[in-house]
Structure formats: C-alpha cells, structure tokens
C-alpha cells in the first residue's frame, strides 16, 4: 500500500515538473531573449535603422518627410523638413505653392497639392547673400483605379 502511494507520488511530482516545464518554459525563455519569441520583430533585424543626420552647414534646406521615388496615394502631400530657425521657406510643386516660416528649431511644414504621376516637390530658402538654396524630392502619385 505504502509502495503504491510512493510510486503515485513520484509519478505526480514528475508529471507536475514536466508539465510545468512545457507550460512555463517558452515564456521564461521569451523573457530572457524577447526577439527569439518574435522572429518577425524589427528588433530581430541584423542591420540597425539608419539615423539621418542633417548638416545645415552643407545643406541649407532639407525635406525630411519625403524621399525620391516615394509612391503616394493622396492628392495632397505633407512636406516638412529642416532649415535655419525663423526664415521664410517656399514649398512648391507644379500644381501648388505655399509660403511658410521655420520655427525656432528650424522645422518647417506645409501641405501641397500634387498631380497624378511624377511630381517634383521643391523647398526653397534664400540665404544671406540673396541666393536661392533648394532641396527637391521626386515622388509619384499613384493613379486611383
């Protein structure tokens, strides 16, 4: 009788240990290395995301919200970027134009209408010598089907 209880006890203990291992094991491992649990997470990427550095010394005005070859679906595009603080910025496309001013940190933004197909967005500022300095981005408005 005692022997049966002993055997049953061992069985229950082993069963609890194995079952607990199966149940809690993956969770514990996930806490040790979160990316292993989520192989699709961006954190698992071997290459770190590029950090954009804007040098205003070399580039007086930079459009940061758009990239060349970017495909957009809306007929209005948000244009934002960086330049010197508190200066006039002109934003243009072949279909629209907007005048704005950069804030104290040199940030500017505006919205411009674009046409279907290819569009070149220009951000322009005038430097101290009265020379126009620009940045441009070529984007494509997809045709709505």
């Amino acid at each position, binding site marked *: 009788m005692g*022997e*049966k209880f002993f*055997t*049953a006890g*061992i*069985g*229950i203990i*082993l*069963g*609890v240990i*194995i*079952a*607990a291992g*199966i*149940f809690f094991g993956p969770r514990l491992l996930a806490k040790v290395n979160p990316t292993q649990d*989520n192989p*699709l*997470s961006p954190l698992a990427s071997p290459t770190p995301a590029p950090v954009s550095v804007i040098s205003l010394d070399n580039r007086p005005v930079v459009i940061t919200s758009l990239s060349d*070859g*970017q*495909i957009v679906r809306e007929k209005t595009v948000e244009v934002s970027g960086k330049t010197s603080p508190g200066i006039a910025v*002109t934003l*243009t*496309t*072949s279909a629209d*134009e*907007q*005048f*704005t*001013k950069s804030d104290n940190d040199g940030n500017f933004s505006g919205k411009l209408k674009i*046409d*279907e*197909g*290819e569009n*070149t967005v*220009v951000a*322009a500022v*005038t430097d101290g010598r*009265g*020379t*126009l300095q*620009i940045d*441009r981005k*070529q*984007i*494509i408005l*997809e*045709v709505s*089907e």
Partner: protein
Amino acid sequence: MKKLTTVILLIIFNLSFFNPVQAATASPSAAQELLERVATKVATLAEKLKKGVAGEITVIGTKTISLGNQRVLVSEATTYYRIKSGAKTTIDFKNLLKGDDVAVVGTADSATGDITARQIIAKVQRLPLTGKVTTIDKKTGVYTLAAGEDIKEVEIDSLTIIKKVDAKGVFIKVKLADIIVGDNLIVYGYYNKPNDPLTTIKADIISSN
C-alpha cells in the same frame, strides 16, 4: 512494469491537466498573434519593395521598357495611363513610345534591381528650375536664370502662370512684367527639344531685389 505504467499514467494525467488551460487560452490567441505578425511583416516587406521611378523611355522591348539603366518589366496586371492637358486616358503597352516621360509604380526585385510595374503613367514631365533672373529678352521671352555656376534659359510668356508672395504671405497671380532682373524664380516646365529653353508653365517669384 505495473509501477512504471502507473508513473506514466500519472504523468499523462498531469499533462492533460495543464494542456486544456494552454489550449483554451494561449493557443488561439498565439495563433492569431502570429497571423497578425505575419500579415504585418508581409505588408512591411511589400511596402519596402514598392518602388517608384520616373524618366524617359529609352528602350521598348516586348514586355519591358527601360528608363536609362532602369529596366521595367510589365505583366498582365500592369495598367497604363496617359495624362495630357490634365485629362487621363487608359492606354495599352503598345501605345507607349520611345521618348515618352513616364512614372512607374511597382515593386523592385532586390536581386536584379528590375521593377515590375503595376502602373505606368505617361505624362510630360514638368521639370523644376531655380535661379536668379540675370537677363530678360522681351522679344523672345527668354529669361536667363543663374544658380551659382549653372546658367539656364527659360521661356516665359503670357500663358505662364506667374505668382508672387504678397504681404500676408499668400501667393497671388501677377503679370509677366512683374518679373524683373534680380528676382529669384522657381519655374516648372518642359523641353520641346533638348537644347531649347525650358517652356515654362508656372513661375513663382520667391524674392525681389
């Protein structure tokens, strides 16, 4: 043997005790989560591979076009449009011509760099040019724009939409005569022939002397 059987049965009993909990809670949500992650990843990859390119058609093949060095593949799923004077028409591959300005919307093959087109939009490209007005020839309507070392000729006439920022910071339409030497201009236009002045459809006066 009997003892071993008892131990195994008890282990199975314990496992069955834990598993229903796991099956009832973790498994369906985990599967759902995995599906969502896969869908997100697929969407992210599609977004990464999505590529737009614009330029002049230099070569037309049987099922390809080239924009300079960029090869573009077409398929049954590719749709073609031509935009002229603001009006859009659906066209076919056979309607594309060498020398057409096109914008291509598609996905890039990361191995070859080729783009498989989903849309090809033919439209005369409106190029921007910027610079300071240095000379004005009123007879020919040719204005010379200087941007550093770069000197460009543009043709501005009464059909060009000319705008200037007013005191309130709003662009308003002005006349051709309002453009004077020393003005900074941003113009958009196209070339009728490679060495011709840019035919300007729009000119924005940015600053005056």
